[in-house]
């Protein structure tokens, strides 16, 4: 059954908070940080007004925010937190604890550059840095997608085959503080879609029975044990396997959600425009995709064969989908909103290049690092990138494989 829902004017942060309000969340624990603050303010209001049954724990740091969510999720609660930049960095060690304990926590990260110098504006260095922590990572393009993805995230995280934490990344200020029309579903529809958290059961040999894998106050299970060289590796493999299984679940949930709302995000992993007959394709994540698509449309109207792929998931990384899409493309430009000093190109570039290494087509792949610390990306700049790529597609040797765009020399 398809539900249209009403239109509300919400910024990205408000869209996230509105979705969380509807998702039967038991515990929220968060610490304010620009530009995530609106999320925690709205959620505090929902709780203060008794709109939701949620317990809101006003902790004294992001470290405690995620620690509290871990405790809550371990006790069987559906838990949510939100942060940004330095806050995510402070949570670092606990990101691994959350995935290692297989706790389906959902977190919104409002992307912001990392200090020093201190900066409050958008880039993806914060979340990209956490790519190996065992969290599923979504990068959304607009407030509507932020809203939709939060709802999907609980379902993906809590799926019995997955049981991994999910991070929803939205660009600081570009999305967090920009008012957009967002079509929201009725409360009961969202509640019905996500249900309540049902903890998975595990077989406990010393009890001789299956028990819910949560601290219920009665069942003597131990969570957070020490595993050394003889067992640790197997625990890590379970996280790796769960992340692989998440691929199917992300696809399924995207489909189920589109049947409900009429909104799908490609296959769940990526959306694309003009790629089929393109000679030059830009790959991008987050809100900049809108600008890139706008320019691509303009150029295609002039008859230039350009396309754009917007990655929605970075973890799991959709390498198979990318390879299929890019099999006939001659030049690919990977747009990174993060840096990796000392590396040969930035992280997204490395992922894409690795994915395409075994592809027979072997397109030329270049890296455009852009938007660092909130540096604006104008349509004019995107046009330049496309003309650079089109020349490469025609056989010109790239002036350099890794280019830092829009920075003073």
């Amino acid at each position, binding site marked *: 059954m398809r539900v249209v829902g009403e239109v509300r004017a919400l910024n990205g942060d408000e869209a996230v908070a509105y979705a969380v309000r509807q998702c039967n969340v*038991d515990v929220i624990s968060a610490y304010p940080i620009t530009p995530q603050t609106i999320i925690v303010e709205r959620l505090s209001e929902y709780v203060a007004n008794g709109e939701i049954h949620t317990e809101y*724990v006003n902790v004294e740091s992001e470290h*405690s925010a995620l*620690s509290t969510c871990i405790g809550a999720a371990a006790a069987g609660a559906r838990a949510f937190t939100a942060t940004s930049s330095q806050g995510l960095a402070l949570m670092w060690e606990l990101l691994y604890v959350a995935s290692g304990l297989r706790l389906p926590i959902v977190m919104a990260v409002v992307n912001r550059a990392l200090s020093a110098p201190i900066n409050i504006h958008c880039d993806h260095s914060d979340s990209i840095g956490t790519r190996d922590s065992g969290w599923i990572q979504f990068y959304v393009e607009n407030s509507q997608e932020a809203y939709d993805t939060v709802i999907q995230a609980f379902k993906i995280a809590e799926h019995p085959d997955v049981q991994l934490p999910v991070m929803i990344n939205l660009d600081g200020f570009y999305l967090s503080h920009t008012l957009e029309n967002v079509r929201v579903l009725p409360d009961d529809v969202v509640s019905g879609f996500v249900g309540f958290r049902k903890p998975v059961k595990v077989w406990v040999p010393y009890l001789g029975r299956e028990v819910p894998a949560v601290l219920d106050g009665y*069942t003597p299970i131990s969570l957070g044990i020490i595993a050394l060289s003889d067992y640790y590796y197997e625990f890590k493999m379970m996280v790796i396997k769960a992340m692989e299984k998440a691929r199917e679940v992300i696809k399924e949930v995207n489909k189920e959600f589109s049947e409900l709302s009429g909104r799908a995000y490609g296959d769940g992993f990526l959306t694309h425009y003009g790629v089929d007959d393109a000679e030059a394709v830009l790959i991008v994540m987050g809100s900049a995709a809108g600008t890139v698509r706008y320019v691509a449309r303009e150029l295609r109207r002039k008859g230039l064969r350009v396309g754009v792929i917007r990655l929605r998931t970075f973890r799991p990384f959709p390498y198979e989908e990318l390879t299929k899409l890019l099999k006939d493309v001659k030049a690919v430009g990977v747009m990174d909103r993060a840096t990796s000093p000392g590396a040969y190109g930035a992280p997204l570039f490395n992922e894409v290049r690795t994915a395409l290494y075994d592809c027979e087509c072997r397109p030329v792949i270049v890296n455009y690092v852009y938007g660092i610390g909130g540096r604006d990306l104008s349509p004019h700049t995107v046009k330049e990138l496309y003309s650079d790529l089109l020349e490469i597609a025609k056989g010109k040797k790239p002036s350099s494989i890794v280019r830092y765009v829009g920075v003073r020399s």
Partner: protein
Amino acid sequence: MSTPVNLKELARESPKLLPGHRHCAGCTVPIVVKLVLAGVKEPTVVVTATGCLQVATTIFPYTSWYIPWIHNAFENAAATASGIEAAFKALKKRGVINDDNVNIIVFGGDGGTYDIGFQSLSGAIERGHNFLYILYDNEAYMNTGIQRSGGTPFGAWTTTSPTGNVIPGKPQHKKPIADIVVAHRAPYVATATPAHWLDLMMKVRKALSIRGPKFIHVLTPCPRGWRFDPSLSIEVCRLAVDTCYFPLWEFEKGVWRLTDRSLAIAKNPNLKKPIEEFLKIQERFRHALTKDTYIVKELQEYVDSVWSDLLRRVGTTS
């Protein structure tokens, strides 16, 4: 009201911390855990900070805990407890569970409490979560091999406060952690040792009958780190109390009370032993007793001032 301790009843109970754990011989920590958990009724969840207790009891595929148990990280045991408490409240609100009260008992070492975990503890107490925090204080980072902590006493040898020719042992005194918790206006704060076991158990029972954040500072001498014979652990606890190095007291709703042996010493000051009695049984103070004797003098002065301050708080003067 807390229920009285009934030994016959407790003897019939199966222990919550099972044998076979990897604590060192003479370690006082598992004794404290057993005493704390004896007679604790369901529903209960135990939280442990990273440290000796965590690694010695849960080496996969084994666990010594016959009670719901979690370890999250080193510095966040109190925040973890906050989350568990919030979860139970929310689950109760939506009718998943019926329990009005869940005992949440945290065990944190001195590193996880005085130092790296202090912020998380302070935040959790300020928010008023309903949990009992047991600080097991072995006065150094013993799990990593005897490094100084905020709980290490003045002059003590550790591997990061070595007895050098210029700096002999730790130059700073112990952080008054329990006083700091009292300053948070926590409803119940106490000190205890495993040697004064009935005192410890009664304090635990009382604490669990009070809602809000409770804190019990338990001295847990470490034979490896303090350098004494493993057979002397309980004797070391007794001497810590007899010398007033570690007085036994409780603070409940604004009222200070001395308990057990410390109450006896307050009534009869002749029972108070000189600090040397406590120091000479441990090799970590050997340098203080042989060449750097000013350490003994300074420790004695420190102990005396803390003790007379405590006597003032309870309304007695020595």
